[in-house]
């Protein structure tokens, strides 16, 4: 029988660099959203 696809993407075992993960954690800590009276968001990055 013809194999319609070869390898599932999930079979490739890879991870991001540690500094990418750390960047995201730091980014999150520095990020705040403030809601205005008109229901809009102001993005504050306190880095």
């Amino acid at each position, binding site marked *: 029988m013809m194999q319609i696809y070869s390898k599932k993407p999930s079979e490739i075992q890879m991870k991001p660099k540690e500094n990418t993960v750390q960047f995201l954690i730091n980014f999150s800590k520095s*990020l705040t959203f403030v809601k205005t009276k008109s229901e809009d968001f102001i993005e504050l990055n306190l880095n």
Partner: protein
Amino acid sequence: MVQKNKISDSTLVRDYIQGKEAALGVLIKRHQQRLYSFIYSKIQDRDITEDVFQDTFIKVIKTLKKGNYNEEGKFLPWVMRIGHNLVIDHFRKSNRMPTFKNTDEFDIFSVIGDGNLNAEKKLIQEQIYNDIREVVNELPEEQKEVLVMRMYKDMSFKEISENTGVSINTALGRMRYALINMRKLIEKHNIILVN
């Protein structure tokens, strides 16, 4: 083996929304391999994968912090969908067409680009992708849904089962019938799927 006392994604998401920043690290580390592998499988470039992975979680962070997340219990499929959309954005921006592996074990779902294709090859590939799209669209809705979740969103059958409200066996059956029906449609329409 089932891990006992594992905090669920929905609990971690709730904790994070309530200001517990540490929950984000747990979520990222829990799903990093799955998301990263998925992105790399499509892009095949480490640096770009790193960027797309980062952009995916930046979107996740912003959505959660704004309080716009409303898919409790379905965190991973939601993150995978964002990653999938960003992969598509990447290919659109780089203006590269998806290619087709011309081997015995070719992967019709591959979306890896090749900037060196000539105009004729590009036309053939566009035709192949149009054909596949039409074949997929001819499938019954429930089979199409499972096929798209499995092949394009890289979801497990357990996740598909949770998202569609059917048992894992039913999801497996739908996938099997989707592939059988695709083969029949390909034969019926005399479609040639190699370049």
